[in-house]
């Protein structure tokens, strides 16, 4: 059971209360009745018990569901299920025992990966009995955190089979496009690679907590100091006065001044114990709990799309949300939706995409002419469809290329119901676009590609795939059309393609470059398309050489590259595509707002550099004006060190790119890295492992002493979520790992701005106001005793009535300050967003620090002097208006405590800047309560019931009817407050803080929130172009041509244009075709159903002509 902070302090508090109780039962020491300690103790225990009970209930509700999985179990996984243990793959529904998995949760990479079971286990198939009888032995490495490596052997039927990463499904993956598979559990629970990467769970405490601990220690020291001073005073008093006063007060325990001083010390410990803010911890917990509820209740952090409200999973960190300096964000799934959409294109020098009609509405293109179209694909430019229908040859070539040049595989479970299995989401999006524009990729064999081209079934002979790799940055296919024409289709990064274009394209190149710049400026991922018709003879020669090289043994890859290089030249440019890596809503705005609030945002991702950089631009983290982009991407430790050492401009970004060397970097030159990274305006770390994410966070925590926040959605973010001061999980998605280990969770990245700039800022403000005021009121209360000691022979006589001492914190002052800490706000949320600079004081710890505490103590000192000496001077030689006594102890106590209560209440009024009806009720109610309780306690009835407990009988009636008593109360209250008001007023005039300025502005604007900032689309004129985000690894080319995929019998073909049968409902929600998404979320979502229009007619007419 984890020891929580609250419990720890609970123990200290209990021990402290117990110690005080022990002191109080010693008659020589007891300066207060037992109930002054017991009543608060009972209250604290009650609150604790209530909190513990709720915590228990909550933790019971959060039990994990897969706790029973054990090593050696065989489990069956179905499509789209989350892998919950490290498994050895046994068999799968797919041909060749393949399974497709998505690892975005694990490493942030967005492409699908393939795993393949051993044939020997694959033969077990779906037969549960056979599987149950499976009797093998697996020897493997001990649990470790390497996600990219696995070594082991399977011994089965006397034979040994090697096991590597390709045969293992790790916890955190999600099964995709695979009906079912069986796996043997190798590691479960904490031994899984994912959990090994999760880092330690440490108990988090806020910086205010730590400061409070220091302060409490100081206060203990101060208490000892005060008691010592008073004990010494007592000693001197005994020697000089007390020893002579024995006629009226004999000394029972001899005449020892030192012994008396010793007793006085402990007596004063009891009286002055109120400086030690033990009850503070209870109040702080209540306030944090309240402010956590506000987060849970916030309608503006509720995401209706998946019915997910924000949740404060930890209720003890709220005020830290107002002090964040660094935000570490995951990319995939946090900043981006992990959805690619085909947004725009440029064909033969004409740009298609963004079209608005006269009313500014974007019209959706109607694809109903095409029965094979994906209904969820949305495009906004009708002219492109027109161009297709008018048989514009370039447009047709453009889409034909998209339909042919890829490694996607199609699956047609039912007639007309196509599913695409793509390796990278970009490819899926492009092929889907071609499908909707009438170039439907239908199926492939190792040597042919079947497409439905404007309703005509055509089969292209696939002669070669010149596959993608990281250096080539392009892929080509060589096909023979049914008419027998040989063509090479190529798509790739624009810079690469441009180098290989035919001279005749230069004009088109210029126009297309402009379009590419425009697309890139909008943060779209671009790709250039080109083709070339091949000469039969030349190709045959090339093919022969290709075959030779393919079968040669040495230097094969280099020679292949040369061959590819040779044929991919003098290409003719077709155009360019622009695919949007869809960001989550409001990400650029959020990032902009947070950086205005001086919060530094670092993106830590396991993804590739190109993708990360691209997202950096599109989400406004990197901007064009950051011209000095600094990329650390050394391949060896020395390189990295060298690059770090070299002089860099302070504006830029860095990409420690290769994981292994980043490790070295962390160990070797972490400080150099940190220095560099902190000079940069934006930092993006790519290809970092989950553990490295945590290490980066730790690095910043350790060396910058800054408050950090980590936000992520996947299991690969768990370690940094745990490492950062605040961990935020994106909820409402499939994986729950990140959420389960987070402190706060919500559905959208953009809610972060509300969490920090509104909830965090308010929580911090409230907590600081609370602490300052709490210390003020308790110190003031206590210091009056200190001054009184000099006038009562240091005898530990209290100034106030004991009931007042008991109830001061619990009843008379509790609710007003609690009300302030729950309702206060300087400016409302709209203004908080309008002025993100308001967040800065929190980062600088301005509202509560040692200095602020010291100021509180000084202020209390002043107030207590006023509160003691003004009543002293006012009543010491006076009498009532009927000549009777009013300078007696009980009247004096009543006067002082009433003065105190008025002074601290008025002070609270000045602290509070947001008077709701509740606050007003609490403040006035507490004062009324004071008088009600006081008159009750001092009534005849109470006295007659229990004479010894209520000795103050009649004091209220006899002194509070005196005008000079009320004049004294007025005088002390005003005198306590005047200097504060003067100081604050002058301070606001002479050096106003940002808060003062904004509050002033709000006042001027009559508290009407500013018009919401216009959501301008971020446009840049950019010379930078985004690269094509293929998988980092080698493409699927080999697999495609090998034919291993193609065992499944193809469906009988029919004409793609049957007008009747298309039903949108037949699409499974998880089908992935339009706007490819590996997570299967709907993209390019189309809301309304498609209307039948004249376009369909047009098609019908054309058909017979075929």
């Amino acid at each position: 059971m984890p020891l929580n902070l609250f419990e720890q302090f609970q123990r200290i508090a209990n021990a402290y209360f117990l110690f005080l109780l022990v002191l109080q039962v010693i008659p020589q020491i007891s300066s207060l009745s037992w109930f002054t300690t017991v009543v608060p103790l009972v209250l604290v225990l009650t609150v604790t018990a209530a909190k513990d009970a709720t915590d228990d209930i909550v933790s019971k509700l959060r039990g994990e569901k897969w706790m029973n999985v054990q090593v050696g179990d065989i489990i069956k996984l179905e499509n789209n299920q989350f892998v919950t243990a490290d498994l050895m793959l046994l068999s799968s529904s797919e041909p060749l025992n393949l399974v497709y998995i998505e690892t975005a949760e694990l490493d942030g990479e967005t492409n699908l990966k393939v795993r393949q079971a051993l044939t020997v286990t694959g033969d077990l198939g779906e037969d549960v009995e056979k599987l149950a009888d499976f009797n093998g032995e697996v020897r493997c490495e001990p649990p470790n955190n390497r996600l990219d490596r696995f070594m082991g052997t399977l011994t089965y039927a006397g034979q040994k089979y090697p096991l590597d990463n390709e045969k293992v499904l790790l916890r955190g993956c999600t099964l995709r496009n695979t009906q079912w598979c069986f796996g043997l559990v190798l590691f479960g629970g904490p031994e899984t690679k994912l959990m090994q990467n999760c880092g330690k769970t440490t108990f988090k405490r806020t910086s205010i907590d730590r400061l409070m601990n220091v302060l409490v220690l100081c206060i203990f020291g101060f208490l000892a100091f005060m008691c010592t001073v008073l004990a010494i005073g007592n000693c001197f008093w005994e020697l000089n006065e007390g020893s002579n006063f024995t006629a009226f007060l004999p000394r029972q325990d001899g005449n020892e001044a030192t012994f008396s001083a010793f007793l006085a010390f402990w007596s004063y410990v009891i009286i002055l114990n109120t400086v030690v803010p033990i009850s503070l911890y209870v109040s702080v917990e209540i306030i944090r709990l309240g402010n956590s509820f506000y987060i849970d209740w916030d309608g503006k952090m509720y995401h209706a799309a998946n019915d997910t409200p924000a949740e404060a999973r930890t209720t003890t960190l709220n005020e830290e949300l107002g002090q964040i300096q660094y935000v570490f964000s995951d990319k995939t799934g946090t900043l981006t939706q992990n959805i690619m959409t085909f947004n725009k294109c440029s064909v033969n020098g004409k740009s298609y995409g963004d079209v608005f009609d006269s009313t500014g509405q974007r019209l959706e293109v109607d694809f109903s002419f095409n029965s094979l179209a994906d209904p969820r694909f949305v495009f906004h430019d009708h002219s492109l469809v027109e161009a297709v229908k008018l048989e514009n040859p370039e447009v047709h070539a453009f889409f034909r290329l998209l339909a042919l040049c890829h490694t996607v595989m199609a699956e047609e479970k039912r007639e007309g119901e196509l599913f695409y299995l793509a390796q990278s989401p970009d490819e899926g999006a492009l092929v889907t676009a071609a499908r909707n524009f009438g170039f439907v990729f239908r199926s492939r064999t190792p040597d042919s590609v079947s497409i439905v081209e404007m309703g005509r079934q055509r089969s292209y002979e696939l002669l070669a795939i010149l596959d993608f790799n990281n250096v080539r940055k392009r892929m080509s296919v060589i096909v023979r059309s049914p008419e027998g024409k040989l063509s090479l289709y190529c798509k790739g990064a624009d810079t690469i393609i441009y180098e290989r274009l035919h001279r005749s394209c230069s004009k088109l190149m210029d126009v297309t470059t402009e379009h590419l710049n425009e697309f890139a400026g909008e943060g779209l991922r671009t790709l250039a398309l080109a083709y070339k018709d091949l000469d039969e003879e030349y190709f045959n020669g090339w093919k022969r050489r290709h075959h030779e090289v393919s079968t040669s043994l040495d230097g094969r890859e280099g020679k292949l590259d040369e061959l590819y290089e040779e044929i991919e030249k003098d290409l003719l440019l077709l155009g360019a595509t622009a695919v949007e890596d869809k960001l989550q809503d409001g990400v650029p705005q959020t990032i902009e707002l947070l950086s205005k609030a001086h919060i530094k945002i670092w993106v830590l991702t396991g993804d590739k550099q190109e993708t990360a950089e691209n997202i950096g631009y599109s989400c406004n983290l990197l901007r064009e004006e950051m011209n000095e982009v600094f990329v650390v991407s050394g391949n060896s430790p020395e390189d990295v060190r060298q690059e770090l050492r070299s002089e860099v401009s302070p504006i830029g970004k860095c990409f420690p790119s290769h994981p292994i060397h980043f490790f070295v970097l962390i160990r070797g030159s972490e400080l150099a890295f940190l220095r560099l990274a902190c000079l940069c305006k934006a930092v993006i770390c790519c290809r970092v492992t989950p553990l490295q994410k945590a290490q980066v966070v730790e690095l910043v925590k350790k060396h910058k002493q800054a408050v950090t926040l980590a936000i992520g959605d996947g299991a690969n973010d768990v370690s940094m979520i745990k490492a950062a001061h605040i961990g935020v999980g994106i909820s409402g998605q499939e994986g729950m790992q990140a959420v389960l280990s987070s402190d706060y969770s919500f559905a959208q990245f953009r809610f972060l701005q509300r969490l920090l700039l509104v909830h965090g800022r308010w929580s911090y403000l409230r907590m600081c106001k609370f602490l300052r005021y709490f210390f003020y009121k308790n110190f003031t209360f206590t210091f009056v005793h200190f001054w009184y000691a000099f006038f009562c022979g240091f005898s530990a006589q209290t100034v106030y009535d004991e009931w007042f001492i008991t109830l001061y914190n619990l009843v008379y002052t509790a609710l007003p300050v609690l009300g302030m800490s729950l309702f206060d706000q300087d400016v409302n949320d709209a203004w908080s967003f309008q002025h993100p600079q308001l967040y800065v004081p929190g980062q600088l710890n301005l509202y509560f620090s040692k200095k602020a505490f010291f100021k509180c103590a000084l202020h209390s000192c002043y107030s207590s002097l006023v509160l003691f000496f003004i009543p002293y001077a006012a009543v010491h030689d006076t009498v009532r208006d009927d000549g009777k006594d009013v300078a007696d102890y009980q009247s004096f106590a009543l006067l002082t405590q009433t003065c105190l209560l008025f002074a601290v209440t008025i002070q609270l009024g000045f602290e509070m800047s947001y008077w709701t009806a509740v606050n007003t009720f609490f403040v006035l109610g507490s004062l009324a309560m004071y008088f009600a309780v006081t008159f009750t306690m001092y009534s005849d009835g109470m006295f007659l019931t229990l004479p010894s407990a209520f000795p103050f009988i009649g004091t209220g009636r006899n002194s509070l009817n005196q005008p000079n008593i009320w004049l004294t109360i007025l005088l002390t209250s005003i005198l306590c407050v005047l200097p504060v008001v003067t100081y604050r007023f002058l301070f606001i005039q002479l050096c106003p803080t940002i808060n003062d300025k904004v509050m002033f502005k709000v006042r001027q604007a009559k508290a009407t929130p500013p018009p919401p900032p216009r959501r301008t689309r971020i446009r840049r004129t950019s010379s930078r172009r985004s690269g094509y985000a293929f998988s980092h690894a080698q493409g699927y080319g080999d697999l495609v041509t090998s034919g291993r995929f193609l065992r499944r019998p193809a469906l009988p073909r029919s004409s793609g244009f049957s007008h009747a049968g298309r039903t949108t409902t037949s699409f499974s929600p998880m089908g992935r075709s339009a706007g490819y998404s590996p997570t299967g979320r709907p993209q390019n979502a189309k809301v309304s159903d498609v209307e039948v229009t004249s376009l369909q007619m047009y098609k019908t007419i054309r058909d017979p002509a075929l």
Partner: protein
Amino acid sequence: MGKEGGCGQNKTMVKQEQELANRPDNTAFTQQRLPAWQPMLSAGIVIPGFVIIGLAFIGIGVALFITSKNIQVMEMDYTGFEPDSDCFKCSNPEEKNCVCQLDFNISSRFEGPVFFYYGLSNYFQNYRRYGVSKDDAQLSGDLDNFKSPSDTCSPYDTDGIKPIVPCGSIANSMFNDTFLLYREVNGTNELVPLDGKGIAWWTDYNVKYRNPNVTPLKEAFEGTVKPLFWPRPAYELDTSDPNNNGFINQDFLVWMRRAALPDFRKLYRRIAQGDYARGLPAGNYSLKIAYNYPVLSFQGRKKVVFSNVSWMGGRNDFLGIAYLVIGSMCVFMSIVMLIVYAKFKFPEED
């Protein structure tokens, strides 16, 4: 058809409601939009506020100061510390039943009603262990506590054998000097009548302190002894008035209401009878003091005080002066603030 459609709609609505089951309530409280008053320390409030408070305080201060100045107070020390004082002879603790005399002159009429106080200095009635040295139950007439007084009274709980009633240090140390005031009228001393009725708080006399319900009172004290310093037992404190005995003796009650500070005065008598209701006429007076109470051992002082009162109670210059000073400071600060505001008014741009 229409019916079906309706059903479908209902279904979708139900579905939507279910789907949005987690939507937080949209109330002003949960969304932190409670209407509120947001005051601010603006010049328009602070500066006029200071002027108003300042002027009000000056007004109150003037009233208090004038009132206080009109109250007459006459204080006389009779400790006998100086050798030339008549009471010097009594200051020796060995001296028993010593009587000394204090002569004084009133130059102009001392407006009535005049209150006669005795005062003690450097006397720590507020010392904690002195303060707790009493038995509340005993003082409210509980006979059980007559037989066994509370431990808090120690060492004045018993004389060794019998319980002390009233027990404890406070009761034991009750002030026991007595005074007789004479006015010199035509060469003879005329006794000024002193009224000792109703000098204690009504609640003390009627509620807080009770004698046991035993008549005669003396029987209740059977088996107890008087406090060591007392000349007479509690039931014989006032021989002239049987209702002024036991715990509800006015002088006892005044003493038991212990003072907050080490220099204090307590009401001894009122001078409100006969001709003296209008005050003490000018002339010579002499005060005959039965000097019993030792204070010199702890550097204490004894004094008598004659004073009259006003609506604000006894004379106290402090309150009036304090109001005047603070009122003036408020006005002054408002001028300073006005200058600062005019000169440094914070920039409104940004």
